[in-house]
């Protein structure tokens, strides 16, 4: 009796880790195969983890992840890159695909993100807020205006009535973080999640809610998806069991 209880407990513990989609994996019609997911660069860490969890939940499935600036990914999809799911870091880039009729169904917001100032660990330049970024002699890098993090940063700076002369307009939010992590730049404006993902090399300086911008992350199944059922299952997973992982990486729920 006692052993049985232990085994049952162990099984229950195991099953709780496979998430609420576990029944799908046991049904013979559970979707399987491969999907390609195009995701905004800021989702790199979270999606890598979610992709692995998803593969475990759906045995026989494989998630190929392609990360980049949302605008670059949109350009790739418009030029005919084949994929199944697209997750953008902003609405305008998603709208481009909707307008081009390249999506199946309508996009769903699955997460939100906020901005933070990224500085070297220890904050050697004593940056306390956005207004400090206008200081002369400070090397600030931002995202290029066409990239979501670039236009969000511009919005936040406008909210704070601060004018910044950036040393560079990087093409991808991760480049901004690495320029600061390498010590080439003193500060940058990135997502909260990027600071979290970068680990010990950098730290974040909070931007107050009144100036901050909330980034909406929409996800959609692409029209030319070769594996619709699995793509839909992935989107459903993001809105369900994946939320916990997203929270762990600093995103907030929809």
């Amino acid at each position: 009796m006692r052993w049985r209880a232990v085994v049952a407990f162990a099984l229950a513990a195991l099953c709780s880790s496979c998430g609420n989609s576990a029944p799908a994996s046991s049904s013979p019609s559970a979707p399987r195969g491969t999907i390609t997911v195009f995701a905004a660069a800021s989702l790199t860490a979270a999606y890598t983890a979610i992709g692995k969890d998803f593969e475990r939940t759906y045995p026989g499935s494989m998630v190929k992840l392609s990360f980049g600036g949302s605008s670059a990914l949109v350009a790739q999809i418009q030029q005919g890159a084949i994929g199944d799911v697209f997750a953008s870091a902003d609405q305008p880039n998603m709208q481009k695909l909707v307008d081009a009729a390249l999506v199946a169904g309508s996009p769903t917001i699955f997460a939100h993100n906020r901005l933070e100032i990224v500085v070297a660990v220890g904050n050697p330049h004593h940056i306390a807020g956005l207004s400090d970024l206008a200081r002369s002699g400070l090397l600030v890098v931002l995202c290029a205006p066409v990239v979501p993090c670039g236009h969000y940063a511009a919005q936040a700076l406008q909210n704070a009535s601060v004018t910044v002369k950036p040393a560079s307009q990087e093409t991808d939010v991760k480049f901004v973080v690495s320029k600061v992590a390498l010590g080439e730049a003193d500060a940058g404006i990135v997502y909260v999640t990027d600071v979290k993902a970068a680990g010990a090399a950098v730290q974040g300086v909070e931007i107050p809610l009144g100036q901050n911008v909330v980034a909406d992350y929409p996800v959609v199944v692409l029209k030319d998806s070769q594996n619709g059922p699995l793509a839909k299952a992935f989107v459903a997973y993001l809105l369900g069991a994946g939320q916990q992982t997203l929270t762990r990486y600093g995103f907030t729920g929809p």
Partner: protein
Amino acid sequence: MALPVRRASRPRPAAPVALLLLAGVGAAFFLIPLVGLVLRTPWASSWQQLRSPDVLTALRLSLLASFSATAIALVFGVPLAWTFARLSFPGRAVLRAVTVLPMVLPPVVGGVALLLAFGRRGLLGGWLASSLGIHLPFTTAGAILAETFVAMPFLVITVEAGLRSMDTRFEDAARTLGASRWTVLWRVTLPLVRPSLVAGAVLCWARALGEFGATITFAGNFPGRTQTMPLAVYLALESNPDAAIVLSLVLLAVSLAVLIGLRDRWLGSS
């Protein structure tokens, strides 16, 4: 005198059909992307796109940076090529491999290496900034440095090949007639390898003009300062694909014109 006549009257070599077919596929591989670009060009609005200040700024910066990179490559690359071709010293093979490494290295990797060398926290960068006040990342000088790093090897190997294949007896003759080492170099060696010098410089310039990865990694991207044409094309592709196509066509036309023009005039190989 008899030689050209004999050559002209010789029957054309019979080419194996299979070889011609493969050559045709090879040529088509390069031609089709060009045709695609030309066909998709929005000719009606292209003049408008070209006259936008952003495009002119990027074009001006690209020309400045690529010609500067070529000049620097000539100053340092020709002596390097001469050293590799004429001197034999321990470690020459390794040194030569290191200098041509950027030809095969992914340019982004080159950019990272440059950051670790000339960046603020880099091996030399800190010293350059503190004692000479030279800042390379995020500056036009940095863009030129990145282009030089990637493009100079093309000059070095071309000039080295020229030096190796030239007849050194002319140099010996000049020396026995009492010419100094410098005079021999300036009046005999360099004029003899002029075709290689020109070819190397042109290749180097073309590579510098097209440089993307090392530039964006090391120098960043800012209009008028480090945003060269290839960077402008990349960013335009995300926001305004028509502008990207027009910019690509300009870059292509400039490169093609230079390659065709110089080949006939200087190399006499047409």
